[in-house]
């Protein structure tokens, strides 16, 4: 590979530097890169993964050195919105609102819920739930219940035999000894059962306290989820108009109403939605596109106002 003795995975590429795409035998760079010139087909997923790794690692090592799979991309570090719209291909699935709120974040927007959400999350990370295992205690008790039953049964059986021997006038000395042993055994198993019960009671009390902590944690989790939803709704609201305008400007969008824009912009086909989100987002890392909506990679880069790798 070409020079660049930088260690892998360094997120040190400045935002204005051109994107560099490398395979074992080709090297392309620029703001808009078209991999169509490669003789071998490149897997768009792999290019997108290389963008996420942004040049780190050698990519495709598992495919062997000679395979067409070894693609490396040097580019600025992607923002989180990239996970949503970093790869636009036919059949793309997209949660538009989630993507749009990530786009808002990429533009440095914040939501009124951010502070509270951060504090709830901090509270959550500090909250510890005590370990409380009751399984061992349950198992111990379950064993003793059956042991007591068995010991009791044995005492009854031996007692019956002693009785029978006595009534028949036979010597019952051995049997009496056996009865004494059985009785001792019963007492022991009963003691063990009592101890096991007590241990389970203690474990249950600890478990109850632990559940109080779990309950607090669940409430915090619910609150965090609600705040996150509200923050997302707020961010989506902030970009709604820009997004709707972007949707109506998407080339080749599949619009039900014959090209009008009075439809719901969130109801548009996923590729158009992804492009529109990409246009309103502040993307640093290149978007990998495989769709034919634009004249070429440069046109796509202009429209998205972001670096583009056309596969």
């Amino acid at each position: 590979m070409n020079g660049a003795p930088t260690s892998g995975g360094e997120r040190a590429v400045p935002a204005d530097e051109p994107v560099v795409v490398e395979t074992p035998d080709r090297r392309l760079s620029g703001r808009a890169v078209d991999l169509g010139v490669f003789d071998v087909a490149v897997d768009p997923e792999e290019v997108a993964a290389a963008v996420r790794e942004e040049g780190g690692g050698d990519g495709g090592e598992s495919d062997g050195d000679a395979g067409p799979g070894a693609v490396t991309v040097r580019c600025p570090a992607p923002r989180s919105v990239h996970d949503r719209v970093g790869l636009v291909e036919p059949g793309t699935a997209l949660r538009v609102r989630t993507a749009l709120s990530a786009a808002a974040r990429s533009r440095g927007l914040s939501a009124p819920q951010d502070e509270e959400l951060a504090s709830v999350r901090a509270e959550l990370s500090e909250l510890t739930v005590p370990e409380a295992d009751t399984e061992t205690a349950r198992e111990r008790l379950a064993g003793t219940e059956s042991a007591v039953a068995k010991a009791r049964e044995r005492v009854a059986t031996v007692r019956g035999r002693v009785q029978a021997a006595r009534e028949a006038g036979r010597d019952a000395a051995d049997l009496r000894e056996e009865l004494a042993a059985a009785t001792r055994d019963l007492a022991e198993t009963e003691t063990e059962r009592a101890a096991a019960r007590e241990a389970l009671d203690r474990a249950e009390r600890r478990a109850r306290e632990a559940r109080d902590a779990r309950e607090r944690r669940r409430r915090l989790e619910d609150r965090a989820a609600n705040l996150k939803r509200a923050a997302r709704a707020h961010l989506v609201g902030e970009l709604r108009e820009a997004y709707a305008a972007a949707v109506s400007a998407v080339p080749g969008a599949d619009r039900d109403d014959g090209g009008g824009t009075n439809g719901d912009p969130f109801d548009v086909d996923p590729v158009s939605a992804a492009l529109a989100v990409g246009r309103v987002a502040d993307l640093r890392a290149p978007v990998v596109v495989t769709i034919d909506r634009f004249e070429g990679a440069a046109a796509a880069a202009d429209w998205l106002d972001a670096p583009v790798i056309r596969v």
Partner: protein
Amino acid sequence: MLLVVTYSRAARGSLRNVCRTHEETVVRQFGRVALLRETAFAAFQALRLREKHGGDVQVERTEPFNEFEAVDEEVRTAARAYEERDSPSLPYAAFATREGFPDPEALREREL
């Protein structure tokens, strides 16, 4: 019945899935809690949930409450009499003293 209580969003989600998939096993579901039928299959589902979510899943076994076995007659009569009292704002403690029913403290200390 088996009482399954969940203590995390993930565990609650799994419980809801189980309830949706195995309606015949569910006697009742309330939010993050469910009552399952007393079958080995229900136990299997409850154990699966506990295996997956650990302490975030509590499993208890319930039994029907029989007030004729569990408590003395005076408790049953006290409940009936208090609900039929003339002055709705009268607290039970005062009512119990006046009518000769067990006071709430005594009831609290009495285990079933």
